[in-house]
Structures are given as structure tokens and as C-alpha cells.
């Protein structure tokens, strides 16, 4: 099996197909909180979901934040325009997420997402809803977004394929910003070939996003895989033993695996969070409660009080990041934190690019199995941030990466992540395609099966 999109397009759909999908999805959604808005499609296309921080004209887009409730964008994101133009897809709705993308578990929002494979556990984040929708629907693609691992993490926890392109390959116009120099729109699906189809539709320079590029995307198939020891130090033992078996399997498939040490990789977490929070605190400054989204009522209040009152709508993590980001940007510490982090990013890009010249970097996607929601709730911010160690380096350095299941532990998937050199986006997708020839993914739900 290669493409669910092609399979769906070749099938005759029952007349009430979308009614049934809508009905079943709505029912499951009330438990799992995958969607913020579900729309019954009218077109005869492949079901498509869009993360709630990507603007769809005329449809409430909140990035799962209370402060954006009621925001109806008067325009489509470029990625949405490009997909709608093909007339091959039917828009199903906006998927849930951690507020503004602030989280790795999908619980920093008013309706915490639940993992369809074990409903006591988290679905991962921040693109929690995109991953759940992909795990629920047989024929469907999800447009998601990653800043530091927001596609890989939930894709891994929900057992689907999650692809994050090289920074700049897919236009960000219409994305409600978290951290502009790190945000990347990407795709989740049930097969690597579907991801390739979506990349072809959405990629390429967009005059509305000056940071988008037309750099040629390569499809380099490397047989050399590199494991960075410092990353594996943080991985749960149970996962490690399974991962080692996976590595052996890959060796059997003709890959060579090389272990290397890269001490500086540990700096990627603080460097990433410093840049992300500095940028986020400026992006969130615009939410002042009167032009869109949540409206504070009393205009007679002096503007500072009016703004402060409106900004009480932010969740705790958003407030924490605003305060931290504001601190990091203060003139007196800016060089120490912000500028230093930009230097580290540059250095890491240089070092990783050298490694990736003739290889892929491989690691488990997440260092832990999806935690119980109650466990995740009680984790401290530092523990939370540290859980992103495997996904952050590729995200910080704008490298294309893909996460896919390689084994199962009971009902829960174990996923690996392949990182490629900048603009070798087809290369990492091809790796997953190759893997799929040797491994059959398991899906618990198949809503919309024909």
C-alpha cells in the first residue's frame, strides 16, 4: 500500500459517506478533543484537517487560545489556498493543539486532547488534534505545524507519520505565529507517499511570506545512519532496547549505523527555548482584546488596564512564556541569552550539516512513552522542556525530519525520527517509504473505511 489519497480517489464513495464520517468523528471527538471545529464536507475530496493555528477564511481560528475566540480570518493561509485550488480535498475542520503551540503533550488548552490508543494518556503536542485525526480516519491528511517538535511528538504518540519540512519550504503566510524563525507547517498522514503528495502541493516560494524559498528539494537516499550518543542518554531504557532492535533490523536492510558524540547538542534545548520565547513574547503582544478574538468590554478603562485585563485570557503556559520572553529581550540580558542562542543555532547548523552530508541522523522520536495525562500535568516546566531533546535539534536547525512507527509496545506505538540535511526533504520521505515496504503500521480506528 502506498497512497491512501490515490486509493480514496479511485473508489466509489457511498452517497452518505461524509454524513457518516461527520457523525462518527463528532462522537469520538467528544471524548478525545481532536477537533475545535468539525465541518461536514460538501465536496467529494479526500478528508483534510487543518491545525487551528492556520487560517481558513471564514472559519474560527483560535490556536486553541481563549484570547482568540471568535477570530474569523478574512483570508486563507497560502498552504490552504494551494490545497483548496487542487479541488482534491474536503475540509473537515480545525484541529486542537496546545495553546499557540506551547506544549509537548496537547494538554495546555481548555480541552486537553486524549490519545486514541489509550485514552488516559496524552496524544502529544502541540499538534495533538492533527495526530488524533490521522489515527482515527482511514482516508485523511492533516496539515499541522511544528516549532520545536510539535509534529513529531504527537505523530509518535498516536502512531502516525509526521513530516516537518526544511524551514522556508512551505509558506507560513496565514500561520498564527509562535516563533517565526522556527515555525514550519508540515503534514501528518498514514503513509509516506501521501506526505510526498502534500509536499508537492504546498511547497515553494510565496511572495506573501518573504522567508519562504524556492530552493531545489533533493531526494538523496543515504545508506549511512548516524546516532548521536548524547541524545540517547536521555531515552527511557524500555524504549532503548526496542530502538536497538530496530537499528539491527535496519542493518539487516543494508544500512550502516555510526555512533558519534556531539556534546553541544545539549545546548539546543536552552538555545531553542530562548529564541522561541523571545519571539513568542513579541507575537503575543498583539492580543489586546479589541480588534479580533476575545473582546474586553469596557472601553472607558485606560488602555493599559484594558489590555492587561484582556490578557488574563491567556493560559498559564502562555503567560509564563510571555514573561520569560520579555525578560530575555531586556537590553541588559539580551546578549547573554538571545544573541548567544542565535550563535549556538549557527554553530549547530554547521556541525549537523557536516554530519548530514552523506547520512541521516536517526533516533527515537520521543524519549518516553506517552505519559498519563495526570503525570504530564504534574511535570515541571523544566521536565517538560527536557522531553523535547530528540525533536529540538532538527527544529532549531531547520532540518527536514519524519517520524514513523517502527514497533509497538502493547497498544502504544514506538516511533523513530529520521533527520536529513537542509532541503533533502524528499530524502527523508523516501526513507519512510522504504521502511513501509518492510513494516505494516497498525491502526486501531478506521473511520471512513470504504
Amino acid at each position, binding site marked *: 500500500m502506498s497512497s491512501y489519497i490515490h486509493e480514496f480517489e479511485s473508489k466509489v464513495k457511498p452517497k452518505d459517506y461524509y454524513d457518516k464520517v461527520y457523525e462518527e468523528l463528532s462522537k469520538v471527538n467528544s471524548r478525545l478533543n481532536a477537533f475545535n471545529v468539525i465541518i461536514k464536507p460538501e465536496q467529494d475530496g479526500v478528508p483534510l484537517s487543518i491545525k487551528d493555528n492556520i487560517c481558513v477564511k471564514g472559519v474560527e481560528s483560535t490556536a486553541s487560545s481563549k484570547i482568540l475566540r471568535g477570530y*474569523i480570518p478574512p483570508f486563507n493561509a497560502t498552504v490552504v489556498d494551494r490545497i483548496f485550488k487542487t479541488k482534491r480535498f474536503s475540509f473537515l475542520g480545525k484541529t486542537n493543539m496546545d495553546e499557540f503551540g506551547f506544549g509537548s503533550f496537547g494538554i495546555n488548552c481548555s480541552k486537553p486532547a486524549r490519545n486514541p490508543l489509550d485514552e488516559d494518556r496524552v496524544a502529544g503536542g502541540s499538534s495533538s488534534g492533527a495526530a488524533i485525526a490521522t489515527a482515527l480516519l482511514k482516508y485523511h491528511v492533516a496539515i499541522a505545524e511544528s516549532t520545536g517538535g510539535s509534529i513529531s511528538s504527537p505523530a509518535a504518540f498516536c502512531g502516525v507519520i509526521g513530516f516537518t519540512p526544511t524551514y522556508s519550504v512551505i509558506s507560513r503566510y496565514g500561520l498564527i505565529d509562535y516563533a517565526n524563525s522556527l515555525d514550519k507547517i508540515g503534514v501528518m498522514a498514514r503513509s509516506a507517499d501521501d506526505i510526498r503528495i502534500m509536499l508537492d502541493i504546498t511547497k515553494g516560494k510565496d511572495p506573501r511570506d518573504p*522567508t519562504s524559498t524556492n530552493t531545489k528539494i533533493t531526494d538523496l537516499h543515504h545508506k549511512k545512519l548516524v546516532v548521536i550518543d548524547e541524545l540517547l542518554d536521555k531515552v527511557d531504557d524500555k524504549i532503548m532496547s526496542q530502538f536497538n532492535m530496530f537499528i539491527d533490523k535496519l542493518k539487516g536492510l543494508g544500512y550502516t549505523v555510526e555512533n558519534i558524540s556531539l556534546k*553541544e547538542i545539549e545546548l539546543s534545548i536552552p538555545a531553542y527555548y530562548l529564541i522561541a520565547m523571545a519571539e513568542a513574547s513579541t507575537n503575543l503582544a498583539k492580543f489586546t482584546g479589541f480588534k479580533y478574538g476575545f473582546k474586553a468590554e469596557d472601553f472607558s478603562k485606560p488602555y493599559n488596564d484594558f489590555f492587561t485585563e484582556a490578557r488574563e485570557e491567556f493560559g498559564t503556559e502562555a*503567560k509564563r512564556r510571555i514573561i520569560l520572553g520579555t525578560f530575555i529581550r531586556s537590553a541588559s540580558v539580551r546578549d547573554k541569552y538571545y544573541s548567544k542562542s542565535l550563535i549556538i543555532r549557527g554553530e549547530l547548523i554547521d556541525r549537523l550539516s557536516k554530519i548530514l552530508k552523506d547520512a541521516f541522523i536517526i533516533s527515537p522520536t520521543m524519549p518516553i512513552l506517552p505519559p498519563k495525562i495526570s503525570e504530564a500535568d504534574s511535570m515541571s516546566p523544566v521536565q517538560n522542556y527536557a522531553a523535547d531533546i530528540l525533536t529540538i535539534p532538527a527544529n532549531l536547525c531547520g532540518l527536514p525530519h519524519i517520524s514513523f512507527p517502527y514497533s509497538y509496545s502493547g497498544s502504544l506505538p514506538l516511533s523513530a525520527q529520521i533527520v536529513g540535511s537542509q532541503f533533502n526533504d524528499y530524502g527523508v520521505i523516501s526513507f519512510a517509504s522504504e521502511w513501509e515496504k518492510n513494516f505494516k503500521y497498525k491502526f486501531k480506528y478506521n473511520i471512513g473505511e470504504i
Partner: protein
Amino acid sequence: MEGEEFDRLLKISRIKLDEKEKQSIKRDIENILEYFDSVNKFDESKNKLAFHSVEINGEPRKDEVEKFEDRDELLSNTKTYRGFVVGPKI
């Protein structure tokens, strides 16, 4: 971080916290900053700032006027009075 510094940050970011939130977020932030301080271990003489992760050639757009067609939908997000957007008192 001194209490005064923390209050200053709240003021300039227009964020209000109750006492309990204040205590817990302040403690979190201190821990996070301690954790983040490790970036200062990186003391190479390098000083090239990577503002973006990939190389991007800035291409400005041409100076052309194009009317935004959905003005009504734009303004329907907000409260207006005689065509003006209503904002808080200054």
C-alpha cells in the same frame, strides 16, 4: 530574579497574576533560567548570529497597489463606530 524585577516584567508585558500564580511562575522562571544559563558555557569566539536556519535571499515586492477585497469581513471581527475601529481610552 528580584521581586521588583518580576513585577516590572509583568507591568511591561501587561500580564496580571494573582499571588499564588505569581509565586509559582516566579519559581518556575528561576528554575528555567538556571537551566538556560548553560548557553553561556558555549564560549567560542564565534559571533555569527543565525537569525534564520536557512539561507534566504530577501526579494522585496514591487510597489504596486492592490485592494484587499474582504474589507467587510476584516472589520466584522471588530467593533466599529462610523467606520472607525473602537479602542480603549487613551
